[in-house]
């Protein structure tokens, strides 16, 4: 069986994906809010030849139900602005892709475009963007600009349409300075070729943007945009708007079905195929029994809810030794996925188990390439650098 080499992503999400992860995280609370903690996690991923890390984010903390006791571990659940966190990590890493989450719902498309472009400059071409929609009325109350009623479940489609408009606006702004717009022509005193800057003229129900951006075209031109998708409609959206999609198959068999569905959704797509990464939670241990026992212990304390409260998809969980998982993942790879996004059940234990245990096993099994010499994230994903849509 020969499948093309898989790309590996790791999701960095505080103490880990499992709701009980904070209980076993040896990180002192304050360290969660220090750059050196995050830089060490990114360095671990980079040493382990991980292609890219994503930074989870959400705008606000979940409201505490009235009268509920303080959840233990609550002090370590705060979150940085993920684009800034990625930018701070960028100079401390050399090759890994940095893909922060940023919501499109309450933010300014103009600021989003310049922030991700800036990340692309700071990382010298390693930026991506995981675009999310905020459906939580609590987020709206923190901005005070839109009534909470707009976030009722029946308005979900409109929020997604707005998201499409934001992504389109951001992409146009990224193209609004052609490459080579800065000419520094001493003879004529012109710093800029004014004809290589372009209005974007975005008009939507939600906003209008004249453009151009104030940020020149970034090293990748278009940093890859990722979406999370879990149903055929979302696959369609990803096929129209994204470069990369994170899907949530239940198992290896389902993965083949999901890949087929994503392929089917791309019939109208022009340009390179959508890169499809499966999301998985991993619990690893050198002893398979201990890995199982750890998950059972954690589930006893805080069982992952059947449908996570923040609207995220429940993910398949793989438990065992690195060797066991490499065997299982070979079946996932055979489904035709481009990559896997591994969510450490607990960051402190499972991130090094991925980089030091699982990665060598996947390499030995020929599922991943020995090294990845790519310079930019687009190159790593096999995506050529596009020219600006406005270039003559």
């Amino acid at each position, binding site marked *: 069986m020969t499948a093309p080499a898989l790309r590996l992503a790791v999701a960095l999400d505080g103490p880990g994906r499992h709701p009980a992860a904070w209980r076993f995280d040896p990180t002192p*609370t*304050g360290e969660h*809010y*220090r*750059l050196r903690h995050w830089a060490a996690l990114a360095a671990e991923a980079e040493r382990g030849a991980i292609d890219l890390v994503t930074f989870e984010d*959400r705008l*606000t*903390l*979940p409201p*505490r139900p009235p009268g509920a006791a*303080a*959840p*233990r*571990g*609550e*002090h*370590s659940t*705060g*979150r*940085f*602005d993920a*684009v*800034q*966190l990625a*930018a*701070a990590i*960028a*100079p*401390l890493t050399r090759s890994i892709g940095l893909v922060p989450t940023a919501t499109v719902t309450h933010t*300014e*498309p*103009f600021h989003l475009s*310049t*922030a991700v*472009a*800036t*990340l692309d*400059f*700071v990382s010298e071409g390693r930026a991506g963007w995981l675009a999310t929609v905020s459906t939580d009325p*609590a*987020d709206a*109350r*923190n*901005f*005070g600009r839109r009534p909470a009623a707009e976030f009722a479940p029946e308005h979900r489609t409109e929020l997604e349409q707005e998201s499409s408009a934001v992504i389109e606006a951001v992409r146009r702004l990224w193209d609004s*300075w052609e490459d080579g717009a800065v000419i*520094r022509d*001493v003879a004529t*005193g012109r*710093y*800029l070729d*004014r004809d290589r*800057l372009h209005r974007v003229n975005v008009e939507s129900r*939600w*906003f*209008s*943007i004249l453009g*151009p951006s*104030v*940020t020149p075209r970034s090293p990748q031109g278009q940093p890859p945009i990722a979406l999370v998708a879990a149903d055929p409609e979302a696959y369609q959206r990803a096929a129209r708007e994204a470069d990369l999609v994170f899907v949530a198959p239940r198992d290896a068999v389902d993965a083949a079905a999901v890949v087929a569905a994503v392929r089917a959704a791309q019939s109208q797509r022009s340009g390179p195929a959508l890169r499809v990464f499966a999301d998985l939670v991993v619990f690893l241990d050198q002893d398979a029994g201990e890995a199982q026992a750890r998950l059972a212990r954690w589930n006893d304390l805080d069982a992952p809810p059947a449908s996570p409260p923040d609207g995220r998809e429940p993910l398949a969980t793989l438990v065992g030794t690195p060797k066991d998982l490499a065997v299982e993942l070979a079946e996932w790879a055979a489904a035709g996925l481009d990559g896997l996004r591994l969510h450490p059940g607990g960051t402190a234990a499972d991130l090094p188990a991925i980089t030091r245990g699982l990665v060598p096993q996947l390499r030995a099994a020929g599922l991943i390439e020995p090294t990845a010499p790519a310079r930019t994230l687009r190159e790593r994903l096999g995506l050529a650098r596009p020219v600006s849509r406005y270039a003559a």
Partner: protein
Amino acid sequence: MTISPPRPRKQVILGAGFPHASPWIAWTDPASHSQIDFSSIRHAAQTAEAGKFDFFMLAEALRQREHKGGFYDVEITGRHHGPTVLAGLAAVTDHIGLVTTSSSTYNEPYELARQLSTLDHLSEGRAGWNIVTTSDPSSGVNFRRGGFLDHADRYRRAAQFVAVARTLWDSWPADIGDGDGPARGEPTPGAYHYRASQFDLNGRFPLPRSPQRYPLLLQAGDSPDGRDFAIDTVDIIFSMHAEAHAGRRFYADVKARAVAAGRDPDSIKILPGSQFILGDSLEDARERSHEVARQQITAQNAIARLEQVWGRDLSDHDPDGPVPPLHDPAAAGYAGYREGGREPAAVAVAWARRAEQHGFTIRELIIDVTLRHTFLGTPSQVAEQIAEAVASEAADGYVLTGHTTSTGLDEFVKSVIPQLQERGVFRADYTGATLRENIGLPAQGPASAPWERAQ
């Protein structure tokens, strides 16, 4: 007879300006590097840190400047998202403050407060925010809010914006310890409610108190409203009065307003934005200043800048010839061009008067009204000028911008900083753990009462 030791001279505060779009940069000089490549920005920030500068500061604009139906093309332009690029710099510097200029009109308080808190955490207490209300009326075309707020509304919003931000920055307990989480009965971390005429917000802020609690706050307002807002709200006024005489007048006015408002005048610092030109002698520096000014204001830029204010095409004029008459002040200003928040007609009339008084050519006029080569001379002379200006209360220090991108402070750091240190007016090394501590400002900024008044 007893001889009392000489009173120590007043300490100088220094910021390093890094323009992304400015006539202050002589981009035709081969020593001028990219203003957008991270390696350039990193070099500039690390040089300023090697020189023990208090902070590194970025400006902001939210729309590409336009001119005669196209984009303004004769000055450096193209910039980063401030909070994001400064987060990158936090990783490659250890002590220097990192100041973003960010609009209170075209940001929302929850998001910007979170970005400033993120920057303060990531930099371990080095974040600063230069508050601008974005007087350029045309920026709205790029934002959800659209439109434009008039002067009074911009300041009302800015005052409440800062009040919201402080509420959010204070919304977690002072000490979260290293333990399990909140104790029973403790308030919910991050829970807040803010309600005033401009904002009605509630929810939970996602970050604990940052090392400085409040980032350093700066503001550049020069109008009476702007000065009062600054006294109510900020730690530092980023002023345009670099020349000593005007500086002393502004300094006295602001400090008197501070006293009248019940604020310790020493808790608000005044830092004019300035440039310097070094030479082997005063005469040499003067000559260099003349040359550099003509690099900064190229022939093309002299014409374009005058066209912007005169409001008509002057392309057939000689930049080194006489300033043409203004004709109609009401026609002044392409695309709502403003300078320092003043109306275009007022700027035009002031320029015309100045040109006539001094018999300036076009280029001389633009050099005069645009550049601020405040300090000229040998390194020792420049150090003495700065020390003397601060001692004589023309300023508490300066935000200095070199005339080449990225390399602009190299020579200053090598030759002038040691002279300032030798005179005992500038730190030999950083002593504080945070930006506020290094500047010698109270940990929390202005006390809570005054800025609420603006509501």
